[in-house]
């Protein structure tokens, strides 16, 4: 039992607990907060593995971006009823079956892949340096072409802005 394993267990407990709480809680704002903890815990796992870049991206994009977007959306659209509606019996059964299937699939994949040993093998920051990431982003070899791929997503932004422009009353 070394410090690496202790940290892994702590993070795993945080992630699991807050994931469960995310779907169990009735307040939509609390759900967003627990989701935030889940995402931070995931970032913690990346840091534990030494993938600091991925960890920082996780914190920035998910914790800093997506969750803030969620919270903004909730704040802007908050009505009188911000708790979830009552569950009907058929809804509960259906979701239970779906989650069991999903859980079984995920567990099967995890057990046949032997992730744990590889993940905790050699946490080291020098696994992936910024130079490598940058070179790969701009390279035209295999695994390259990341920048053109990301640039395509600017199209999405253009679509949103154009949609706003058309929808705006002026």
């Amino acid at each position, binding site marked *: 039992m*070394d*410090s690496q394993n*202790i940290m892994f267990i702590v993070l795993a407990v945080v992630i699991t607990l807050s994931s469960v709480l995310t779907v169990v809680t009735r*307040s939509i*704002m*609390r759900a967003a*907060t627990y989701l*935030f903890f889940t995402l*931070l815990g995931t970032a913690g796992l990346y840091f534990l593995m030494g993938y*600091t*870049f991925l960890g*920082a*991206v996780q*914190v*920035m994009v998910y*914790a*800093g*971006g997506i*969750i*803030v977007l969620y*919270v*903004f959306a*909730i*704040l*802007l659209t908050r009505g009188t009823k911000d708790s979830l509606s009552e569950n009907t019996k058929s809804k509960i059964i259906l979701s239970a079956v779906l989650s069991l299937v999903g859980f079984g699939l995920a567990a099967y994949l995890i057990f046949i892949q032997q992730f744990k040993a590889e993940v905790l093998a050699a946490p080291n*920051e*020098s696994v992936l*340096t*910024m130079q490598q990431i940058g070179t790969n982003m701009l390279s035209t070899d295999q695994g390259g072409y990341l920048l053109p791929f990301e640039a395509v997503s600017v199209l999405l932004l253009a679509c949103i802005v154009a949609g706003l422009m058309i929808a705006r009353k002026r």
Partner: protein
Amino acid sequence: MFDFSVISQWLHNLLLSIVPEWAAILIESVLVALVIITLYAVFAIVLIYMERKICGFFQCRLGPNRVGKWGLLQVFADVFKMLQKEIIKMRQTDRFLHDLAPFFVVTASMLTFACLPWNKGAHMIDFNIGIFFILAVSSVGVVGILLAGWGSNSKYPLIGAMRSGAQIISYELSIGLTMLTMICLTGTMQISEIVEQQAAEGWNIFRGHVPALIAFVIYLIAGNAECNRGPFDLPEAESELTAGYHTEYSGMHFGYFYLAEYLNLFIAAGIASTIFLGGWAPLHIAGLDGFNGVMDAIPGIVWFLGKTFFVVFLFMWERWTLPRLRIDNILSLEWKYLMPISMANLVLMALVVAFKLYL
């Protein structure tokens, strides 16, 4: 120049000789955390005193001068007052989120605080993505502010939180772009490397001349906005929103917001001094060996704190000069002026680096 890593290495070896490795790391982590929290509190007190004095001087007043010599004990008195105050429990609020929000804000600013390079060999967190890590964790604070606004179940905090969120998200773009400009010059994101490079080749603001200067000015503006300080303090505009997102907080919960506000100022200044003014790197002028020798004799922490407090003074100068902006003016300043300028500046810096025009 004194290398602090000698001391930390000695401590590490000492602990290793007594306890196993995991326990040694645990003890070191706890020690570092204690040091961070202590420094955090100390700098908050220093900054609050400095702010009140400088604000007074800009307004032709004397500032606090009754408690202790020159009012030095005023902030301590305020802190003890705040510690004694009751934390009010309010009905019809989400207590859990309401109590959680200040800790988000304080944690985010402590994490960025830990990234600052205090001296050669004395940085607590030093990833190879340093600057990016700072940008990432500082965005966690926005969640805390939004939760504070929502958790208070009151209209003023809600409006303040919305304004603050919109403002911080917008100005993070300028901050990111100016940092990117400087990373373009240094070629590394690791904070210790950035500083060591500047110690060897001169401060970035001199090396990068025109684009670096433009980036520095934009950083000064956007940094003030990022800290929710005037002229961008309308998230807590007291004449309209009583106190913005922390209206409903009392006692030490309010104290955390207060602490985080001032420490964010210090952190913004510290990052500016790291990426523009060379962190702990002493001032060197090529050719003057005697002068350089004298400058080397001054310890790195003095250099770092001196530069940081200089930038803090610039921030305060800006704050106490300009009146508060309206929300649409704030957003148009960012999206129509600062961001296009910093994008053009990034291209300019890229050209400077590509044609090796830097000094």
